[in-house]
Each structure stands twice: as structure tokens, then as C-alpha cells.
């Protein structure tokens, strides 16, 4: 990491040099992501958008409490939480299956932050804040599926992986949560949640895979 990446001042403490860090909230893709075109020129076949500033909570049922957790989710979101690999769109949150008797709550603006969820799931589930532990990348475009096929062994054909399908899987040896969001401009949108510390590595792999199709890269604060 370059010395300018994290602003710090050096103070003297008993003869030792101690770095005093300032903890700015930054995206794990802050250094790697360069907005604009990448790879082959012409019409971009792949669109990559990093989504910023989301709330993400892991909800895991306590032993014997899966039914109560589902009921609590229903009361909170007026939607049935996923019990199989699916992503469920509620009014202001997406509930994404992440394993047996557990799911992720993805939302914006603090309405379903871990603090907001705590009371409703007290006694039925354990919550873990993942808001700053993952990067969220949205992949779309004519060649999105062709590009992802190089990285994933999941069949993403629309006949198998329809809107709302989800998978806990690996890409390039990296665990990811993958789901298909609502189509945009008639095209499939694939969303990827990746652990923050692996995000840059996977990002480079994605760029390598997408380069031949031409890529357009950007940020967004809107959930896909």
C-alpha cells in the first residue's frame, strides 16, 4: 500500500515511532476501480458497477429456531425469507439466501441496519453486521453471462438461473454470494457480494475475463 493511501502522522512515543491512523470509510475497490471504458473498444459488452454505501446484515437462526426466524422475517419485511438459494425482493430490502437457515439482508439508508433488525430477531437469530466486510459488484451487458462463465461453474442460462435465483459459490477460489437481480433495459443483472479483502483480486480477474468484450466501469449508490 502506498504511503499516501492512508493519511497518517507520525508521533513520538517513548522513543518509538507510532503511526496514528485516521480511519476513513473507503471502498475495498478504491484503488483498483477506474471508472470509464476498459478493454476492447466499441460498444461495451460488459458493464461493471460497484455499489457503495449499503447495509448488509447476516441473519442466522439459532438452534431449533429456524421457524421463528422465518416468522420474524415475515413480520419485518412482509416477505417470505429464502429457505432455498434465492434472492427475495421485499419493499425496501433484498433477502439473499447464504446457507441453511441463514440469509443476508441488503438494504440502504439504515432502515434495516443491524441495530434496526436486532429487536425483531431477538431470540430467534444471531445477527452479524457485514456492511463493511463485503464489496458489491453488479454485472450486466450483452456479454455478462459469457464473461461470468469463465469464472463460475454455475449454469447462468436464463432457463436455469432466472430473476431471483441465487448461489453461494466460489469464483477464482474466492467465496461469493451471487444472485440475479431485476432485469435492467431488458438485460440480465448479476450481483456479486465478495469479501472485502478478496475484492481487489477478484476485480482484476473479472477485468481480465471481460476485457475482450469491452467494459464500461462505474459506481452507483443505488442497489440493482
Amino acid at each position, binding site marked *: 500500500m502506498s504511503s499516501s493511501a492512508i493519511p497518517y502522522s507520525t508521533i513520538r512515543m517513548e522513543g518509538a515511532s507510532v503511526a496514528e491512523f485516521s480511519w476513513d470509510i473507503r471502498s475495498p475497490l478504491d484503488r483498483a476501480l477506474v471508472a470509464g471504458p476498459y478493454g476492447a473498444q466499441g460498444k461495451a459488452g460488459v458493464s461493471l458497477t460497484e455499489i457503495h454505501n449499503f447495509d448488509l446484515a447476516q441473519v*442466522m*437462526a*439459532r*438452534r*431449533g*429456531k*429456524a*421457524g421463528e*426466524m422465518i416468522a420474524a422475517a415475515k413480520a419485518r419485511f412482509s416477505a417470505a425469507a429464502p429457505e*432455498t*438459494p434465492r434472492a427475495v425482493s421485499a419493499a425496501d430490502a433484498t433477502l439473499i439466501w*447464504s*446457507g*441453511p*437457515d*441463514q440469509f443476508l439482508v441488503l438494504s440502504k439508508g439504515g432502515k434495516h441496519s443491524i441495530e434496526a433488525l436486532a429487536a425483531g430477531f431477538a431470540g430467534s437469530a444471531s445477527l452479524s453486521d457485514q456492511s463493511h466486510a463485503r464489496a458489491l459488484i453488479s454485472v450486466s451487458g450483452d456479454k455478462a453471462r459469457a464473461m461470468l462463465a469463465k469464472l463460475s*461453474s454455475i449454469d447462468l442460462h436464463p432457463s436455469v438461473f432466472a430473476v431471483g435465483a441465487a*448461489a*453461494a*459459490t*466460489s469464483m477464482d*477460489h474466492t*467465496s461469493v454470494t451471487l444472485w440475479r437481480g431485476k432485469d435492467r433495459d431488458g438485460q440480465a443483472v448479476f450481483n456479486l457480494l465478495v469479501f472485502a479483502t478478496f475484492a481487489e483480486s477478484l476485480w482484476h480477474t473479472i477485468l481480465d475475463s471481460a476485457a475482450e468484450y469491452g467494459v464500461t466501469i462505474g459506481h452507483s449508490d443505488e442497489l440493482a
Partner: protein
Amino acid sequence: MRITCPFCGERELGEFTYLGDAKPQRPAADAGEDAVYDYVYLRDNIAGVMSEHWYHGGGCRAWLKVTRNTLTHEISAVEAAAGAGAAKVGA
């Protein structure tokens, strides 16, 4: 080789980690040293159908019990290991 995870469906081997024989059961506290030694260290080298623990760490992070033929890699059964999830197994 592919393993059909009961939660995720068919997945490539790379998503899984092998633990080993699923048969050994922890002996009772008063079973004696030989029984504990056997449980901790001694394993059969089975040529044929074997019950094994596998971990789906590259996917749903559930432990699985897989029945596999070590000669042919044919998998005849996959089920969630006790403790996978919160309620369906071992609750």
C-alpha cells in the same frame, strides 16, 4: 468429481474440503485409553464404499456426510451432517 450438496445442488470438487472418515464415534469418558487412541488416531484404509465428512466451504459452509466409493469415486448418497443449519438436522 462433483458433489451434489443437499442445500446448493451439484458443485465442483474445488468448493469442498475433505475431512475424512465419518464413522468414528467419540468413546464414552470411561472407555479407556485404547478406545480413545483408536478414535483419535486409527483409521481404516477402505477400498470401496466409505462414509466421509466433507465441508462445503466454497459455498453454503455446511458440513456434509458423503457416501463415496474410494475405488470409483462414485457417490451414492449425500446428506447434511448433524449440526448443519439450525433446525433440520440434529436439532
